[in-house]
């Protein structure tokens, strides 16, 4: 067994399967074995920080879906999408520059937008391969805004990203061709996780609007599901704009990726990593094509340094100095966020154990 991944929906175990270590794990070990000991003699704090062992351990988890899903679901728009987003129905959204509404045409084969089972589309992941360095290849969006390919400014990085929260959207769109009125549309297409529970857009419109997933069709907006708990990732600022969820030193899986081991770790060699997606994280991820990939990442020291970042690499949501290397991955044959009634999501807990002995 190659380590194992457990996924829990509420109290129900919905998946328990082996993972795959990638070539990145071997590259990490070769990095470790060839760090120059002479660095220890240099008193510069940044240089000393290169030797910090935490730079060489699992530091993030991310989620992905199949390549095609990035050109469908809430990632895609068409004339009807444009019409709805420009109509008076959505005017209040536009005026508030909110990008955090997942707007998509009903993806049910029967076009029934009110049906609570709304399957994500086009999710199957590519074939498992240990040489891969990203969760999925060819994940550029196909949509344009103001006649410009979104992918020309924000190319796909192989996983579900985190552009929706207003603070993130405003910052990353600033200075790009998408700053201004187009920003919220672009963020809405990029996805993929809602605001935290503390962010509500009810001023000055005072209509209590929250982040929502909206399925619509020719005759107007249809099924709408508003968030209730909000995103844990964005409530606790644990996910950067690229979709990497960082580690937390606590044992609270809502705060980020936890690392734990029991007192017998030196004899059983088991390390457990865990993270929790809120029910609303799952709802939104589903709207953007679901979750068919999981990946755990270490810091790529060489790449981080080459990008002129100086250790210690403090995690940052907006401008993360950490460049990551894929350590192990898990591909799934069924969407982790699939559910028969999208009003009934529960928190999803991922437990990932690696056996060193």
């Amino acid at each position, binding site marked *: *067994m*190659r*380590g194992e991944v457990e996924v829990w929906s509420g109290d129900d175990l919905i998946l328990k399967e082996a993972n795959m*270590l990638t*070539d990145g*794990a*071997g*590259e*990490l*070990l*070769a990095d*470790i*074995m*060839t*760090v*120059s*000991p*002479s660095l*220890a003699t240099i008193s510069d704090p940044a240089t000393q920080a290169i*030797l*910090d*062992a*935490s*730079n*060489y*351990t*699992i530091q993030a988890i991310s989620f992905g879906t199949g390549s095609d899903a990035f050109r469908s679901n809430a990632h895609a728009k068409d004339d009807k999408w444009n019409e709805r987003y420009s109509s008076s129905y959505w005017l209040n959204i536009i005026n508030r520059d909110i990008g955090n509404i997942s707007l998509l045409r009903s993806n049910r084969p029967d076009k029934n937008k009110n049906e609570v089972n709304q399957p994500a589309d086009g999710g199957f992941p590519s074939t498992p391969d240990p040489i891969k360095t990203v969760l999925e290849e060819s994940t550029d969006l196909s949509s344009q805004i103001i006649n410009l390919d979104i992918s020309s400014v924000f190319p796909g990085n192989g996983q579900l990203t985190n552009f929706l929260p207003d603070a993130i959207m405003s910052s990353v769109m600033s200075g790009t061709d998408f700053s201004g009125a187009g920003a919220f549309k672009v963020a809405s297409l990029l996805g993929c996780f809602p605001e935290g529970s503390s962010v509500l857009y009810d001023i000055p419109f005072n209509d209590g609007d929250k982040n929502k997933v909206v399925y619509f069709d020719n005759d107007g907006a249809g099924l709408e599901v508003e968030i209730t708990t909000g995103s844990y990732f964005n409530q606790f600022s644990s996910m950067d704009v690229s979709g990497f969820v960082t580690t937390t030193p606590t044992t609270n899986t809502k705060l980020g990726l936890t*690392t734990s*081991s029991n007192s017998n*770790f*030196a*004899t059983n*060699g*088991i*390390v457990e990593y865990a993270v929790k997606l809120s029910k609303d994280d799952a709802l939104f991820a589903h709207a953007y094509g679901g979750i068919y990939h999981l990946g755990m990442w270490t810091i790529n020291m060489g790449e981080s340094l080459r990008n002129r970042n100086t250790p210690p690499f403090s995690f940052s949501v907006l401008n993360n100095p950490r460049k990551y290397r894929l350590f192990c991955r898990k591909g799934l044959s069924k969407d982790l966020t699939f559910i028969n009634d999208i009003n009934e999501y529960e928190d999803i807990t991922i437990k990932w154990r*690696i*056996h*060193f*002995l």
Partner: protein
Amino acid sequence: MKNFTEDLGITGHLEIIKKMSSGEEEVLLDDPNIIVSGMGFGLSYLFTANGSDSILDYQIERFQIGLSGPPAGGVVSGINQLSGALSSAAEYGLGSNLFVDVRDLRTNSTTTVNNQAFALIPASKITRLGESSVRYTLVIDEEACNGLTRQGSSKAINEAGLFMKNPTGATNPEPVLVAYRTFSDIIKTNDFSLLFRWTLNF
């Protein structure tokens, strides 16, 4: 169940070359080695953040030569020490270029073996080959490991091991065996040196 090192496919290869003072060379061994459980033991300390805070302590930077291989229980991944490691700087050769460091050997989470002699591998002899391979070049020069005896009898060297420096983060480093190999008896003399080219593929 496969463990991490098996699943990752960490392998090793040891080439032993005999170099005569005349310049003549002879390959004595060119075979795979065995990665032992100490590799996973050490890495578990790293990934659980229960071990040393310095990445240098997880490096393989020392080795031992022994006289009593193979082990009585066979060459298995559970080996945590050499069967008959050289016991002192004098046995490694006081006139040699080897730098010998005496430390307690950690054999598992609770046990150490006191005062073991290790030969250090200079950083210049640790070479990265490609993305995930590292070569350790161990030089047993003409003055090293000569005239070894036990109970008055001449002994040949026939085992070697690579060690991780100090994964548990002990105040005084406690090395851990991570790779092991036995080989045919070599009676070492000052007529030749031995070159161990030990390559680990992670």
